[in-house]
């Protein structure tokens, strides 16, 4: 690979206050989850957040007890934040490009659960091996 040109350009990422706004929204969703069991997802990809906004949010939410890596086509990295019930999800392609970044407010993110169709297929595979 060629050495990238070393241009004296620094694109400063401004902090816009979006992190605070998302935190406020998260509190509402978490309360809803506790009271009615309704799960919610915030799609970070579609919010106009700068990289420093995102960093700020991630720092403030911190890391909790669970850290999961899915090895689908490309990895997915999922961790519970220091706030129980608030999960940070990053989906990557096989060549490590981030294609979706979400915060899911739930007890277990949906994608972690085994799908009935996959289980059915697993069962027939198991039966064939015996």
């Amino acid at each position: 690979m060629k050495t990238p040109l070393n241009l004296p350009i620094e694109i400063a990422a401004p902090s816009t206050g979006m992190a605070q706004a998302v935190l406020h929204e998260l509190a509402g969703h978490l309360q809803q989850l506790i009271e009615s069991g309704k799960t919610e997802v915030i799609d970070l990809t579609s919010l106009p957040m700068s990289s420093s906004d995102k960093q700020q949010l991630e720092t403030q939410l911190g890391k909790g007890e669970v850290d999961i890596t899915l090895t689908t086509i490309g990895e997915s990295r999922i961790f519970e934040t220091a706030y129980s019930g608030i999960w940070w999800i990053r989906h990557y392609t096989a060549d490590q490009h981030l294609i979706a970044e979400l915060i899911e407010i739930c007890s277990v993110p949906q994608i972690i659960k085994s799908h009935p169709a996959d289980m059915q297929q697993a069962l027939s595979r198991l039966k064939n091996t015996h």
Partner: protein
Amino acid sequence: MTNKNNLLAGELERLGISRRTFLKFCTSIGSVMALSPAQAAVMAEKLVTVKRQSVIWLSFQECTGCTESITRSHKPSLESLIFDFVSLDYHHTLQAASGHAAEQAREQAMHDNQGKYILIVDGSIPIKDDGVYSTIAGMTNLDMLQQVAKDAAAIVAVGSCATFGGLPKASPNPTGAVSVSDIVHDKPIINIPGCPPIPVVMTGVLAHVLTFGIPELDSMGRPKAFYGDSIHDRCYRRPYYDRGQFAKSFDDEGARKGWCLYELGCKGPITHNACATVKWNNGTSFPIQSGHGCLGCSEPDFWDAGGFYKALSTGTNSPGQWATAALAAGAAAGLASAYLNKSSKADAEKDHQPVTLEDMGGKS
């Protein structure tokens, strides 16, 4: 009658793709389509139960950039999965067959799936002099479009040429180029403009058509999910615009600090597309992030809109739609419009000059 192997569920199994992977695919598609995550899960469940959709792709007066874009998505690509799920029965650039065999494949697909196939068109259609300026297998583009559109379930016009006429239509439009919707009036047409369109926008629309049907469209026939916001609405440099911090030339201090490129001709405020969130080259960047204003390539007549480096509010020869939008943007700009309204005619003329290497190298 319905063989499981004809369904996407069978295709997933054949490819060894778990439902979890598939849900991830639908989540990423749903994310760019602004579907709620619950809808993404519904999409995942629905998509596996649909039959492989017959697709006929016609390329008319175009540069093949749209096909390049869609075939250059991530590899191995979640988005490219959608192409394992459709039966692309005719695409004269991609298919192995040529000549009579190719045209026969098209006719066969039209016959077998009468009234059910999706027609994708890229490129404009020249209609001057009976359409002689572009022909395929001896048939004019105009004739072929009319013939294939007749029995299509829906038409997807891909790229600015098929949606609005694009570059072939640029003044003086020597071939009389027109868009698909100028010719076909009796079929649902989904417009996906862009030069080229973002790959995932094309695949996302296809996924939507297969599961939920035709997505909600705006007055120009564009899916609202991708074209509902302007580049400006979702631009990470927007805070600078709101604060009135603008780069005044390429490589001045403002440019280096990543300030707003509005005064350098950025068309972000009047351009509706998803570049600012979905980005390009596997999510690496988009023009504004690379330090260049948006050209507005997904808007009608962008090529003739009066100069890529002219600030919107200085436009004099813009088409009416652009000028109006520019006025609105200028009014909102506050500081920006105050500055630009005072700028001299000499400045406006300067903005017409092509950018030279010296300009890029940093003038005082």
